[in-house]
């Protein structure tokens, strides 16, 4: 094989992009209007734009999740944190005499996001300083978080009328949905900070071998701690987007199962849950894949409650395609001739992960 083709085929992002393109093709064949984008009043409309907009909360959460997974961690509390930030922001707006003023809305958003940042740092403290396993450290907040959100809203679903707050999910800037632009800014900022500084490499080194990177002088504690904080912050913003979308703080429904979708998006994108090398681009593709899958299923007339079955099938296919055993089988199917010594498939090591 030519080197170029080989490097393309070996690229970890190939499979997720293939899945996304396949999904878009299925949509396009069953409904040719899927790819069309119309312009009304200088604003773009269309199925693709809807997917871009609706994927924003999941995108924010997944970016944080990707970095946390890179450190060999996981953050199960993001859904609960979304509920908390929405509850805080909407309670402040509902209690204020001027729900339509921009200042009130800004204060409400800042308060909500600041609180989830604190909760994220709390997760990071448990993981990096106390040394609790990430699954359990964040499970604590996953269990308690919705209860906290319910206490903030007094057990009710707080609804508000506030034009600036409604703009977050419903507004357009430069013809694009504001919600999408928020997620775009998050992608660019996180991407620049992680990949244009040493943070990304240091994160990967912590994820690949925490002990060795500590001995090499990497301050793993601070990195892990701050990344959980970042995950909390992003989840807080996602919670604001979600609550703005329905203009209500529903502590029981906000961000339910989004942690699972986010983990799924990260894994679909080619990042291993074992930590270490992570890919933000893959995660972005993974998020779009999941969102496209969801809207495809809705369009095909399948009830939304059946969506999990399709997700399960997609995960099985992607996980199997990443599995070494299946890859070994596939490469054994190829004719064995012209195999260079460097191409010889290494036997499957059956050691503990």
């Amino acid at each position, binding site marked *: 094989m030519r080197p170029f083709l080989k490097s393309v085929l070996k690229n970890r992002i190939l499979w997720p992009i293939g899945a996304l393109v396949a999904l878009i093709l299925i949509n396009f064949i069953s409904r040719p209007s899927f790819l069309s984008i119309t312009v009304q009043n200088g604003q773009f409309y269309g199925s693709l734009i809807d997917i871009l907009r609706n994927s924003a909360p999941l995108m924010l959460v997944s970016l944080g999740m990707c970095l946390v997974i890179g450190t060999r961690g*996981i953050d199960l509390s993001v859904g609960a944190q979304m509920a908390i930030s929405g509850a805080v922001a909407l309670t402040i707006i509902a209690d204020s005499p001027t729900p339509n003023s921009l200042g009130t809305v800004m204060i409400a958003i800042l308060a909500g996001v600041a609180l989830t940042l604190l909760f994220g740092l709390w997760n990071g403290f*448990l993981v990096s300083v*106390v*040394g*609790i*396993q990430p*699954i*359990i*450290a964040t*499970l*604590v*907040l*996953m*269990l*308690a*978080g*919705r*209860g*906290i959100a*319910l*206490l903030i809203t007094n*057990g009710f679903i707080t609804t508000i009328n506030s034009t600036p707050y409604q703009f977050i999910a419903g507004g357009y800037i430069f013809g694009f949905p504001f919600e999408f632009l928020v997620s775009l800014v998050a992608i660019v900022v996180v991407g620049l900070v992680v990949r244009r500084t040493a943070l990304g490499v240091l994160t990967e080194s912590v994820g690949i071998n925490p002990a060795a990177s500590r001995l090499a002088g990497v301050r793993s504690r601070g990195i892990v701690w701050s990344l959980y904080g970042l995950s909390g912050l992003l989840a807080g913003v996602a919670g604001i987007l979600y609550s703005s979308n329905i203009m209500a703080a529903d*502590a029981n429904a906000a961000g339910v199962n989004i942690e*699972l979708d986010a*983990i*799924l998006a990260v*894994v679909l994108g080619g990042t291993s*849950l*074992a930590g270490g090398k992570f890919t933000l681009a893959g995660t972005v593709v993974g998020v779009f894949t999941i969102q496209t899958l969801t809207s495809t299923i809705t369009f095909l007339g399948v*009830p939304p*409650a*059946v*969506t*999990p*079955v*399709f*997700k*399960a099938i997609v*995960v*099985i296919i992607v*996980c*199997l395609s990443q*599995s*070494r*055993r*299946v890859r070994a089988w596939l490469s054994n199917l190829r004719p064995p001739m012209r195999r260079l010594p460097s191409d010889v498939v290494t036997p499957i090591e*059956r*050691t*503990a*992960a």
Partner: protein
Amino acid sequence: MTITHETEPTTTAPVIPAWRRVVGSRVSWMPVLAAVALLLIMFAAAQAYFGRFITPGVISSLFVDNAYLIVLAVGMTFVIITGGIDLSVGAVMAFTGVLAAFLLTNGVPTALVVTIMIPTGALFGLLIGILVQYFDVQPFIASLVGMFLARGLCYVLAPRAIKVSDVGVLGLQSTKIGGGGWYITATVIIALAVVIIGAWVLGYTRFGRTVYAVGGSEQSARLMGLAVARTKVLVYVVSGACAGIAGLLFTAYTAAGYSLNGIGTELDTIAAVVIGGTLLTGGSGYLVGSLAGVLVYGVIKTAISFLGVDQSWTRITIGILLLAFVVVQRLIVARANRR
């Protein structure tokens, strides 16, 4: 240079005081004892506060209301001891319940339905186990697949709740045996039987001991020639079968099969098992502890309904307790490693 007065200078092993040897050999029981102690303290505190907490009725209903959770915790303990995790149990429980309700309304005899439920749960476990062992999928993701699959299939089978009016199934819950305020139902007997059988399997069978060995060190277990692969698949099958049994108990308890039953149950189960002293890193844990963990959960729930405050406090309290226990476990593990 100091002069030693040891009578056997050839012995190189350090002399350990007898008390320390006793404590050392029981160190894995410490978290379990902590859970039991917590349970007793909570009972005492609730009794002191409410005055009428330790009554036959309350204690009986503690078991009756949490029978399904006890069974789920047994399966989860097997999985967690090997160092894995099973997120699918709540969804599989719901699916077997919906399946049972569906079959019963279509006139399938009760005995057949019950015998179908347990293998169905085990089948989900088998799928997860194969993904984990043979395709290197992390337990978290593999069981997530099981969870998604079971939840979605629930809805495919029955979009709305199906009422169960079968006398055989409902009789498990409604037939109360006992007297003087104490009562027990068939669901509790089944749950306790599962605990006892599970404890026997874990403690006294080749499979059970291999479960501990795999959790302690998979590589060592493999080098010892133990059937690691088979064991790692089987623990998920056990967990799935337990979810099937729990589905039966839950159906008898709620008298309906519904696709949204038991959402979040997997988290309650994991919390109960961890509070019960099973280490999430694997290799250590006892079913007695898991039983105590479930009862702690039940006492919190009962106490909160006694207080008449919002039920959201249950999850908050469980979260705080989970945190406290994990920190304590962490300290124990850290001390054990230093030695």
